[in-house]
């Protein structure tokens, strides 16, 4: 009983983190129609940057924000100067992001070495909630809270602002959006920067829980992919729900069927792609 409860709460916490990772990925995918295969690298690089800021004595949440901003800047540069030149060519775009994932992984190893880093949990969120003899780390619950706040902020941005309206138009029908004079090109840069920044922010927020280590990028990227495919590309609600579904599949799969843990994780992705390619919450693309 306690096992299931612990697993359930942990699934929700992991779901929160996955949302931070995949919300930006979903928007980029939805808008630009490319799977950004360096998204896991953004997450890892962000976490490493956060560790460096923390080392310089910056407070935890400021470090997370700074890392997010720095990554947004890097992301916008990559988009503006490299990805943009390849607009409309899906394949070279996919490969460019793949090439960058090699570069970022190696740069991180060069700068931060192979040592694992695990920053201390922010002081105000240390300790655990004890309910009926069960421990639950407060910090993991805080991650869920952060994810919910980010989700609401994104929802407000996308559904209630002019910028959001443009993004939605871009996701729904890029050619029409371009025709009615929406600067799709600038929008791409903006969304790419936002996605990169969110991933980096998520990386720092996740660091006290997952730690930061070489290879983290390759671990997080497939998770982001599954979440977005499951939820539907370009759909924030989909990314939100998908994150928690994957959080549960990941935790219960590992505990109950360790041999088939990855089958359990990826099979839903195949099924959705084959049976309902638009995802659970995606719109049917004509």
């Amino acid at each position: 009983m306690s096992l299931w409860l612990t697993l359930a709460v942990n699934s929700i916490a992991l779901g929160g983190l996955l949302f931070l990772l995949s919300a930006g990925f979903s928007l980029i995918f939805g808008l630009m129609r490319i799977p950004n295969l360096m998204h896991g690298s953004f997450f890892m690089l962000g976490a490493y940057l956060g560790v460096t800021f923390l080392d310089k004595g910056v407070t935890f949440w400021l470090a997370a924000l700074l890392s997010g901003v720095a990554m947004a800047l890097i992301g916008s540069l990559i988009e503006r100067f490299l990805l943009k030149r390849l607009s409309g060519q899906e394949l070279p775009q996919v490969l460019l992001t793949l090439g960058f994932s090699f570069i970022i992984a190696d740069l991180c190893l060069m700068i931060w070495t192979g040592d694992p880093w695990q920053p201390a949990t922010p002081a105000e969120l240390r300790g655990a909630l004890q309910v009926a003899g069960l421990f639950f780390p407060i910090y993991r619950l805080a991650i869920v809270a952060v994810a919910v706040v980010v989700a609401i902020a994104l929802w407000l941005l996308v559904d209630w602002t002019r910028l959001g309206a443009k993004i939605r138009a871009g996701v729904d029908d890029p050619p029409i959006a371009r025709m009615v004079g929406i600067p799709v090109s600038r929008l791409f840069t903006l969304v790419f920067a936002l996605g990169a920044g969110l991933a980096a922010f998520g990386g720092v927020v996740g660091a006290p829980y997952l730690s930061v280590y070489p290879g983290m990028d390759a671990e997080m990227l497939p998770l982001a992919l599954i979440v977005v495919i499951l939820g539907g590309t370009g759909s924030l609600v989909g990314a939100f729900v998908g994150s928690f579904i994957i959080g549960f599949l990941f935790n219960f799969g590992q505990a109950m069927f360790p041999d088939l843990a990855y089958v359990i994780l990826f099979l839903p992705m195949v099924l959705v792609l084959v049976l309902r390619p638009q995802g659970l919450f995606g719109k049917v693309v004509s």
Partner: protein
Amino acid sequence: MKIQRRTVLKGMLAASAAVAAPPFLRAQPASFKIGLLTVKTGPLAQGGNQMEQGILTFLTEKNNTLAGRKIEFISADTGGNPAGAKTKAQELIERDKVNVILGPLAAFELLAITDYVRDNATPLLSIAAAEDVTQRKANPFIIRPSATSAQCCHAMGDYAAKELKFKRAATISEDFAFGYEQMAGFQRVFEDNGGKVVKKLWPPLVTPDYTPYIAQLSNVDCVFNGFAGSNPVKFMRAYADLGVKYKIPLLAGWTAMDDALLKSLSDEAIGVISAAWYSSEANTPSNKRFVEAMQKNYLTLPGGYSAGMYVAGQCVEAAMQMLGDKADDRTALAAALHKVSLTDTPRGAVKFDSYGNVIGDVFIRRCERKGGQLVNTVIKTYPNVSQFWTYDEKAFLANPVYSRDYPPAKNLE
């Protein structure tokens, strides 16, 4: 002084120059080549970098000259996977024609190249722990100055049952050979002394979050973990965060509580009891030099990976001294390595059994905070521990090699 990979190039140039030079200029004997198979990319890179630091510290101390021979050092990155280990071993043996290989790091890398080094008659001093390489499949070219997977875990099983008086244990380790063999060694000695291993968990090498496993640990007196690489840091943090640390004492193998990891750990490590074949606190002259040099040059407390390579360097030197000007004979070198017996190494006295595996002390340590720093304080020393523990060698080898299923876990609940 730091030896760069470029030295290979320079060495090749020098070698071709030597060939071109008139004979009377060729008095200097060719350099003796030491190849290192290490990991510089991927999750195991931390240990791999320490291996290189360890051997470089030794070579620097010896002014890059062993037994009167200039040393040419060549480092190769396997990428931490068996296929890479094979490719790099071929590179070292067939292209660079090294005299001896140090490494590789991981058991699964070693298993992929043992036949190859034997067929190519090149001595290899392993830090990887795969049991059978110095047991049922022992081959004359492999020498292990570190330890087999279970060598320290036998001692831990003994200590847990006899001194800590634990009755029920759970084990958790990575789902690969090194993990299986460690847990099996612990289980065997612990159960032979009246304990019961009631749960065995195997998370994969790459596990973003250990909670699904830790949540299954309850109703035991202790948990023995054998994690490696960067995993112990993650595991111990989650173990403390989930409150299990305050209910169930944690025991650890050498990689899980390596001294080099201490800088990445915090309060979650306090109280963890571990068994290791190296302690940075060991009171030998060479260890003092070694620890001082490592702290000066690399700003780190050395652990088993770097100490293992330092000791390997000492063994190579001793074997070269034995052979004199016949050190280039690789088969003779392998035989001489088996006969090496040293009293002063960073880990204490070192000698080898007939299978090429080390016999040396095993330390039981408790992690404490001293003056703000985490240290592994030695609380008991098991002297001259062999890979067979106290078991009869023949009977030991008649059993199957330690694995996920052997010895069978009869007490699982």
